[in-house]
């Protein structure tokens, strides 16, 4: 999980070397083969997604019934019609805004707490021995299993859904941060201290930037889990939100809306993960030069 994101980050950064051309020794100008590789990549991506649509189209066009059943699955154009219908409606955009607000609220709290607790737990053995047993006991409980308890705990549905989202994002961020502090090269800490850094300065200027790559790995994973948790929570207890929209469509036997809901969920998830990756690249420009980054 961690490694794959790491690679993505690095190759992602390597794909856009034009940011600092003159300074980088290893900078290679985009060559013919480079642009060719890019267009080949784009062509394959289009093909990959195109096949998905083709299967969907053919399945619904011929009402395939081969163990799995396409009878009730809406065709692409029906979904498209549904999309144009809701495009102007306030309820649909309200659903999106609601989901995004919940994810940002839950994710933000998870970020602050996960990184904060993670730094302390990673650095101090006492904190680790005090906090980690409780974390390890709670961690195997999936965020979705928290839904009933969350409804009991929190005064409003809204806050209970945000709590579920937080639960989903918290553990990956925490554990990756702890891992980052523990795997931080000790020589950097010794260097910092012998250059006169106090403990607080060490946290701010050595440990925090040192674990940033791990934090972003945790954020990427956490964002994925947060979406899963949010959608489930909205389906079960929600009012508004794209998860609620999708479940409501099922209840109302509005099949095109189900698929539209799914596509919306996927697109929003993609958008959020992409945003994190982009912020990661902007926040950690040095990763573009780490050994092996330009394979």
């Amino acid at each position: 999980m961690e490694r794959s994101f790491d690679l993505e980050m690095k190759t992602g950064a390597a794909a856009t070397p034009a940011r600092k051309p003159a300074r980088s020794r290893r900078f290679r100008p985009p060559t013919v083969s480079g642009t060719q590789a890019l267009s080949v990549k784009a062509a394959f991506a289009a093909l990959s997604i195109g096949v998905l649509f083709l299967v969907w189209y053919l399945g619904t066009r011929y009402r395939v019934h081969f163990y799995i059943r396409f009878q009730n699955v809406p065709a692409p154009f029906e979904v498209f019609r549904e999309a144009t219908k809701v495009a102007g409606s306030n309820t649909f955009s309200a659903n999106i805004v609601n989901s995004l607000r919940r994810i940002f609220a839950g994710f933000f709290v998870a970020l602050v707490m996960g990184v904060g607790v993670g730094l302390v737990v990673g650095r101090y053995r006492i904190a680790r021995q005090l906090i980690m047993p409780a974390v390890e006991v709670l961690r195997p409980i999936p965020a979705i299993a928290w839904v009933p308890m969350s409804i009991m705990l929190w005064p409003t549905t809204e806050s209970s859904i945000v709590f579920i989202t937080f639960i989903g994002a918290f553990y990956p961020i925490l554990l990756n941060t702890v891992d980052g502090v523990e795997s931080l090269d000790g020589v950097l800490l010794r260097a910092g201290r012998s250059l006169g850094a106090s403990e607080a300065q060490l946290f701010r200027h050595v440990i925090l930037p040192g674990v940033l790559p791990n934090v972003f790995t945790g954020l990427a994973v956490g964002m994925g889990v947060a979406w899963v948790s949010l959608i489930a929570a909205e389906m079960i207890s929600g009012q508004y939100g794209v998860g609620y929209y999708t479940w409501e469509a099922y209840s109302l036997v509005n099949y095109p809306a189900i698929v539209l809901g799914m596509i919306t969920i996927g697109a929003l998830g993609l958008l959020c993960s992409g945003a994190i990756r982009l912020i990661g690249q902007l926040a950690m420009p040095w990763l573009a030069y780490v050994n092996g980054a330009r394979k």
Partner: protein
Amino acid sequence: MTQTNNGRIDCNNIGVVFGSGEAQTEAVKDVSITVHPHEFVSLIGPSGCGKSSLLSIVAGFTKPTRGTATLDGVPIRKPGAERGVVFQQYSLFPWLRVRENVEFGMRMAGVSRSRREGTARTLLGLAGLLAFENHYPDELSGGMKQRIGIVRALAAGPQVLLMDEPFGALDTQTRTVMQEILTNMWQRFRLSVLFITHDIEEAVFLSDRIYVMTARPGRIKAEIRVPLPRPRTPAMFETPEFVELVQRLKTLIREESLAAMGSELTSGGVEGFSIDMGPNGVEELL
């Protein structure tokens, strides 16, 4: 800074013991060394003799089991900016550009941005690295990284410089050049230096005085003054004094390396390697 005679390191009867109970090993035994102000002192010895432990104590990273280490009479308890350290491993902060790395110590001390920048640029210029001030460490070669490591330690304004085999990871060519750069920089700054190495030529070329340590547990076996004039130049590698001194040190070190590898090896050659094997031969041993 008002004192003129600062930068004196004293290690008094230092002992280091690792582990406890059965697994106890004595790494350093009763070592007393001194680095006088403005003096370049090397510590050489076979691997595992505890020379790095000693440097770690002076740096304040570890505490000795016995004895005391002081800087200008003040006991050393923790790391501090007055004792700059250059590590064997690359230790630049990968997230900071070269100049930001060099400015790190001054930034911790609250020096203003413009003064930091001025000092860092001056030092980088002296080391011939100004052109790389905006690079990230991972863009640079190993030799450059170590030079920047030295510049970064100097920029924090230390009274002494502690160097733990700083050129150990470099190839021979780069290493020779680095030694020349270091001796030139030392000529300019005249800091007290405690330098750890296992390279005898390197120690002779750079030092005013050399301590030779014994195999584990490490003790001081000999203290040798290097009579070569300063400034040092690469041409000195060929002089009879240099060659003779290196030869003397090699003999001293060889005895210790043999001792470190076990008593069955003697100066007369390799003995004690005959192994009694049963009828099954080597398989029995494995």
